[in-house]
């Protein structure tokens, strides 16, 4: 049992076939993180709804613990999360669950849009859920705060990754960060590249080994949440999410770096 659950924690995504059989066995809690009105229209059978905005309205550990309890999740529940936003919103929810100490959570390998386009089953029924009790064992080792970031400047072996689009990065970023736009992480139909592919790409960029890696994005840790799982998917052991991301960094008026002397925005056709 113990070894089994360990194996499960290593798994960052769940493929479509496995999810369908887990749904049939009733051995999985599926979380749909889209907006309530989208969820109500239809969703993957048995899925419960946790709109990301709801979670973000107060993501203190006590509050989210209650939220997850109300979704019928205890320490032993296997959870799969999905969205329709290339996995970024689902990642943020999955990460939060991990942060309060849940070990068995993964992302659906694809988006709900893709799921539907494949003609797979969907449902309008809202399942009845029995509240459960999850314990609270915070995992601070997967969280980075602005203070933490500032102090890690002195450490040598830290890689800070900016997952926003390239132009945003060029315009301003946290000093020392490298740019890895979230689009880089996915393929046409999977939210994450195949492991070997991802590994090669990251190794080219010098992202490998035992370095401490911190990801951030524009505001709430969604794009960088996806990157968090991308890095974990190739087995990188020490990954943290700067969950308040660049928005907080700027508000705190911390130092910012930019690419000087070039009008790159004028190359964009937007």
């Amino acid at each position: 049992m113990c070894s089994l659950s360990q194996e499960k924690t290593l798994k960052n995504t769940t493929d479509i076939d496995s999810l369908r059989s887990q749904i049939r066995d009733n051995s999985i809690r599926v979380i749909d993180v889209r907006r309530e009105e989208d969820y109500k229209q239809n969703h993957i059978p048995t899925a419960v709804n946790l709109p990301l905005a709801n979670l973000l309205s107060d993501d203190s550990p006590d509050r989210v613990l209650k939220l997850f309890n109300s979704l019928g999740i205890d320490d032993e529940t296997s959870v799969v999360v999905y969205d329709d936003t290339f996995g970024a919103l689902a990642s943020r929810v999955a990460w939060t669950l991990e942060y309060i100490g849940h070990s068995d959570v993964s992302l659906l390998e694809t988006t709900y849009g893709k799921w539907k386009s494949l003609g797979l089953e969907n449902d309008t029924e809202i399942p009845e859920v029995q509240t459960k009790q999850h314990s609270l064992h915070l995992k601070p080792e997967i969280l980075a705060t602005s203070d933490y970031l500032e102090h890690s400047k002195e450490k040598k072996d830290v890689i800070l990754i900016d997952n926003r689009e390239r132009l945003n990065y060029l315009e301003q970023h946290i000093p020392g960060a490298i740019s890895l736009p979230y689009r880089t992480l996915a393929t046409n139909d999977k939210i994450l590249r195949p492991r070997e592919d991802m590994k090669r790409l990251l190794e080219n960029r010098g992202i490998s080994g035992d370095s401490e890696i911190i990801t951030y994005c524009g505001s709430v840790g969604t794009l960088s949440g996806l990157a968090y799982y991308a890095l974990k998917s190739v087995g990188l052991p020490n990954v943290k999410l700067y969950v308040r991301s660049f928005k907080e960094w700027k508000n705190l008026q911390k130092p910012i770096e930019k690419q000087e002397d070039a009008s790159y925005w004028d190359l964009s056709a937007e």
Partner: protein
Amino acid sequence: MIFLILTVSDLKQSRPDSAKPNINWAKIEEAEDFAKTVKLYRQGKYNDDSFRRYRLQHGAYGTRMTSDYAMVRIKLPAGEVYPHQLEKIAQLSEQFSIGSAHFSTRENIQLHWVILEDVSEIFRGLAEVGLTSREACGNSVRNVMCSPLSGVCSDEKFDSTPYALATAKFFLRNPMAQSLPRKFKFNFTCCEKHGMVRMVDVGLIPQIREIDGVTQKGFKIFLGGGLGNRSFVGHQLEEFTADEDLLYTSIAVLRIFDRLGDRKNLARNRMRYLVNDMGWDKFQNLVLKERALVKATQSVVTHLDIDDLPSEIKRPIRITDESRNSNPDGYARWLKTNTVKQKQSGYHSVFITLEAGDITANQLTVLAEIIKDFSSEGKARAGFNQNIALRYVHEDDLSKLYSQLLGIGLAKSGALTMTAPVGCSGTTSCNLALTNSHRLAKEIQRKFLELKLDEDDDLSDSSIKISGCPNSCGQHGIATIGFFGGGGRVGKEMYPNYQMLLGGRSDGETMLGLTCTRIPAKRVISAILKIIELFKEHKKSNDTLKEWIHRIANGKEDGDIKSINDMRKILEPFTIPPTKEDDPDFYSDYGSDTSYHTKTGKGECAA
């Protein structure tokens, strides 16, 4: 031949979404090799120079003021590009670039601000769709161009596309073209008018001759032209070069250039300098002799691999064909300024103008679908003016196509007029740039479309081309009104400035624009409008701006403005800088709100 196929398969009407290229330009090993080489370079195991040479040979340029980024220049030989290739490029631009791609003036698509360590990933992606950036930069045979109208132009003798593709195929990765004294360019065209053949190392126009009742295909070949810090017009090699001599001639010219080209003086090592220094007669002689030699020694192995089976032409099926009784707004204007009737009856070629060549990933993706839905040849062509041509669009489908292009912001009118200026990348990414020529081109287009200048027949055959420095990537030398960037100075203050040239053209009467005067960046638009106003005052009946300026440049105009000098005097008020207090905006370039100063890095043209 083509016509026959047309009428027959017209009846079939199916969506040719399976149009796939016959030639795979890619080599996946090069991706791995590039990744490895970058690592070694970062570890200090390569010196800067040899790494730069390697990088350029693989189609990755340096980027303004940084060694962290590169620009990847993807070649589209003969300009051809297929829908699945555009989809891939869209994806790569979002993953590794700035979410936009850029169509160049030489039928390349460029991805800018790519992290050097990601370049190999782009190569991988390109290999999936048979594209390469190999030899898109560096001292090699650059992308072989072909007129976007080749095969459909009513003035052409035959379609030179297969010859362009075969030439590209022959020289790509060919050891003889790996370390030339300098870059080397081939342009094939359809006819004189759609040319650009005299402004390039080797320019070719298809010709047919008849000897004793036998018709033979061949070319008019022009050698030694080119734009640059100093520009030259190419010379015609001989009356007629038979198609079987095409490859021998190309090899002969390359060999001579390789042997005698200036490898030391970086500023003077394009072939046009060799031709100029040696004198045309001597160079011509040398080429003809060398060709005889090549022919005698290489007759067995070398021939061009010409695939001149015409593309399959099938008009895509309309799934929803709601009959439309009124055309969408702006349709007539667009139809007039963006489309050309093909020699194949019932078909049009449609030009899509991009703002200075830029297109978003999303537009590219939708465009790929549009090509499948509207082009009966199932592919598109890059044009000469940072634009895209969709050919074989049935006339009954034009209005529908227009609506769809409108939906993704690609229906700007004026594609084939003066309102679609060319602008090189300038300070948006180029190391040598002095001004933001790229943005200026966009500003001019916006303003001129607002003024509806694209609808003015007097202006339509004129052109505006802008480079951000004297190096001519923006082709300012062949524009009716051309500009290249520099810095102007008032005491300690600097402002962005442009040298204006008038009267350049690249058709049968090719000539280089003559220097007129320096116009500050923020006065360029009003100066052009002033020139147009003067033209309207002085024009003869049936006159065009292009002809008027041509007469002025050649001392053949008899009105009040007789010479470039006269024009200079009239435009003088535009050249006088205001004080910084009066007009601070004058002292910053487009796209920047800080005071202008020039800053350049090391150029790579010469590397």
